């Protein structure tokens, strides 16, 4: 099981708790995890990545194992701790303020 933490507003939208468990066949890439997430929770389509381009939305960040994976190619295999289910992939709304 792959674990994903999603932001508050998307939890409300998908009616889920803080962490979402997903079955993702290997290779466990960012694309594979997001596709699994959107398949299980179709209301999240377009909220994390653009539906037309598939690109990460500008104010979304992907954190895992203390690293920012936001700028990694989407087909990069995620760290082993994510693939093993030991650590969650954190989908984060970027800071905005003033």
């Amino acid at each position: 099981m792959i674990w994903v933490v999603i932001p508050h507003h998307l939890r409300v939208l998908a009616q889920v708790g803080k962490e979402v468990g997903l079955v993702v066949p290997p290779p466990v890439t960012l694309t594979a995890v997001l596709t699994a997430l959107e398949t299980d929770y179709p209301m999240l389509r377009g909220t994390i990545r653009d539906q037309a381009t598939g690109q990460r939305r500008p104010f979304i960040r992907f954190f895992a194992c203390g690293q920012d994976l936001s700028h990694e190619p989407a087909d990069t295999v995620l760290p082993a701790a994510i693939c093993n289910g030991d650590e969650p992939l954190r989908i984060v709304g970027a800071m905005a303020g003033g």
Partner: protein
Amino acid sequence: MSGVRVLVGTRKGAFILSSDEKRQSWDISGPHFAGWEIYHLKGSPADPNRIYVSQSTGWFGQLIQRSDDGGQTWAPMGNTFAYDGVPGTHQWYDGTQHPWEFKRVWHLEPSLTDPDVVYAGVEDAALFRSSDGGQTWQELAGLRHVKGNLWQPGAGGMCLHTIVLDPGNPNRMFVAISAAGAFRTDDGGETWRPINQGLISPFELPDSTAEVGHCVHNLAMHPSNPDVVFMQKHWDVMRTDDAGEMWHEVSGNLPSDFGFPIAVHAHEPNTVYVVPIKSDSEHYPPEGKLRVYRSRSGGNEWEALTNGLPQQDCYVNVLRDAMAVDSLPSCGIYFGTTGGQVYASADGGDSWQAIVRDLPAVLSVEVQTLP
């Protein structure tokens, strides 16, 4: 007992205000979709329990929500707004051509007769239609063929913000686009043409009478007289008597003819309401006095309506979709401000009260008159 339901979209959620026909005491529910920008929500005239909502944020993009029980519960609908075919390009700020890119839904206009049909006006400017209650959307791409390559965004973005359906002719529809103008279809959205003759924009356009490029802010029509359409332009309040073939100015004695919303009385086709704003760079009422202006003559002669509205130190704005009327026997007028107040008049504008204060900035106000 009849009543009204006021649907308020704000920067941080939606609110639903309900009252009986007296419109003196109000129940407020919300925030619905807390934290999200609600550009617009509107009920179906064919089924008042059905309400469509445009929900978005800069973080998570665009969602469409729908209620089938008058706003008690909601369900997410389809949010794929794909331009038809190769999207093409429009003018960009630097004069180059820029690809059409979907950003958000500004306005949702449910069909007058079919609760499953709804139109969406979007940024970058285009018109979409759903015939399955908002689950899927198809672009009416003929609109962008009307010199779309010459349209360019204004400071507020290149948005299609106004959709007016002709109750007497299901094939006729009017739309308005910021910094592009007004357009009309007579064949259900297949083909369109600009209807901007008579508009003059000397401060905004190099050719002040150009066929497209005028910054139309809002349109309003009375259902009994669909050839007469009123327009609040960037500057100028305009009127057409022939469905947009020619416009003439009816700003008359307004203290400023800049503004955003325009509305028509439910029972008096020649009674029109606007909210003058000082200027395009000073988005607040002239002299710090919040005044609705009413014309009972279809324009040109305007009277200030001030009873119950702040008449000093008021520097809010009223956005284009933030004024609406109910259709109770004594017509109610409603508008919301960027300061978070929603004002209502149950007597056609003679007197006003704030029916809610201190909401987030109000983006839109719609009213449902309930049996």
